[in-house]
């Protein structure tokens, strides 16, 4: 059978980037070939249809609405993508028995899990990049349209008179905080992917995982307010504080990552707040990834 020279057996590496990358790119290929990027068409359509209804508001409102709708849609799409793509990964590999064939190769479980998660992060990165490009192009086109309209309306005005209006428009469009908003949006999707991954390691079906992830998403968005309310109304006993501590650990306060509203209205985002949010996001991401590994490493298939 074997005429080609036998591949020399290499000593087993405890960790291999090549193996991890092979699993990550395979996961990305799978999701891309499942045509998950079709949602981008819906996203583009949303922006185009939405823009038809903006003619009756002021120029500044038009741009703000465009940013609001775009960033809102990006948040929803990236969260949905993170939840659905991650929830089906492990159950599908089990159902098709590909999990057995992979783990029967010299692949440590954490490499498999990290490879899968990296694939999802790549997918989210590409999806958010694509949406950002659509958003950027739409915003740019809208800026030039608005600038031309402004020029038409202030046709007789001198350039000195027009300058402040044009400057205000430009600041509205070329706002560096928009990049931070997109970065935070990615971080939030990554945290949600890590949460969904953890849930999929402890559940037996993807439907259960999706349902649990949706519940965590809701609690994550309301727990901040609920916590404040409890702190104000309760006696501050150790029981209450302990309960709140557990809730904070189990359910990340996803509302903390919603800094988009401030950025849309042009209220500058303090750099310290951005860094704190990023640090918290990274912390949550690693906590849930570590929990996923702990659950997966002892799971029997």
């Amino acid at each position, binding site marked *: 059978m074997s005429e080609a020279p036998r591949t020399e057996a290499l000593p*087993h590496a405890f960790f291999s980037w090549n193996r991890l990358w092979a699993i990550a790119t395979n996961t990305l290929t799978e999701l891309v070939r499942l045509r998950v990027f079709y949602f981008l068409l819906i996203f583009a359509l949303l922006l185009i249809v939405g823009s038809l209804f903006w003619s009756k508001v002021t120029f500044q409102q038009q741009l703000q609405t465009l940013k609001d709708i775009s960033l809102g849609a990006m948040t929803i799409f990236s969260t949905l993508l993170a939840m659905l793509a991650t929830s089906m990964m492990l159950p599908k590999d089990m159902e098709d028995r590909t999990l057995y064939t992979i783990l029967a*190769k010299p692949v440590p479980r954490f490499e498999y899990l990290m490879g899968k998660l990296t694939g999802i992060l790549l997918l989210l990165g590409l999806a958010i990049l694509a949406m950002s490009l659509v958003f950027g192009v739409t915003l740019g086109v809208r800026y030039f349209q608005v600038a031309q309209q402004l020029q038409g309306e202030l046709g007789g005005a001198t350039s000195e008179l027009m300058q402040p209006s044009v400057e205000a428009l430009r600041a509205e469009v070329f706002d560096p905080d928009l990049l931070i908003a997109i970065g935070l949006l990615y971080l939030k999707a990554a945290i949600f992917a890590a949460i969904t991954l953890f849930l999929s390691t402890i559940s037996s079906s993807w439907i259960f995982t999706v349902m649990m992830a949706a519940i965590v998403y809701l609690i994550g968005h309301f727990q901040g307010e609920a916590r404040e309310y409890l702190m104000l109304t309760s006696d501050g006993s150790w029981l209450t504080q302990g309960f709140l501590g557990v809730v904070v650990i189990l359910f990340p306060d996803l509302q903390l990552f919603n800094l988009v509203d401030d950025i849309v209205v042009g209220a500058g985002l303090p750099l310290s707040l951005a860094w704190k949010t990023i640090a918290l996001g990274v912390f949550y991401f690693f906590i849930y990834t570590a929990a996923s590994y702990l659950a997966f490493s002892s799971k029997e298939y």
Partner: protein
Amino acid sequence: MAESEISSQAEPGWAIEIEKLNKTFAIPFRRERLHAVRDLTLQVGKGQVYGLLGPNGSGKSTAMKVILGLLKPDTGRTAIFGQDSSKVESREQVGFLPENPYFYRFLTGLETLNFYGKLCSIKGKALTDRCWELLKLVDLEGAAHRRLGGYSKGMLQRIGLAQALIQHPRLLVLDEPTAGVDPAGARDIKDLIMRLKEEGITILLCSHLLAQVQEICDRIGILHRGELVREGRLEDLIGIENQTELILEGASPEVLKELRAFLEARGVRALRESKPQTTLENYFLEVTGEEGQS
């Protein structure tokens, strides 16, 4: 037991060693546990083809999964070529084909082998060459660029066998390799297993197709309700000690008559006299023309 202890106990000739293996599973909402494998001890020698037989739920798949590190034993030890099989590195030497695999349907045959090759740290030209070599071996060169979603059951089994062989394993674990495959496909897979056996690859085969096991295996073990009830060389287990089979060609009725008389005179009783039959498999393949193609 530590890995070193297992290594010290391992005999140089064993490809697989299972020692007092016990595995139970929890039953939801009940106190007792399901005993899937009970005190299983067996060894598979290097280069042997070992058939693990048993009815559904007898513990075959559980034992196999423990060997592959997919399940943890409650008690007992398993080793592959002297290495504790719960260690990831022991799988460098193992290829596995599960029952009814689907693999990644969105990948082509070539991409599938590339993927599994990368998992075994094979790279570059060595990987490309190996993929094509295996595609040729399993007769899927023509379907190399087709997605697995469009493969037939037999083709999936063959690509599965190819992925199991990607890193030149010394041990192949095959779970029902011909399940659901048509007779021609089953024959191809069986022939492939025979070729691998000739190359000295150790094969652990789980199958319900007893005729196939009888044709391929050197040694068998029969599991029933998690216990190994019979184990040994096939010819020792199924051979009838005081009987001899004699197949004649071109014997006329007169010769047969003389032969019967000769035997009777010496106190030998002829138990059965019939014309040998071809197997239904051979007949089917002949009729459908597959025999000529293979």
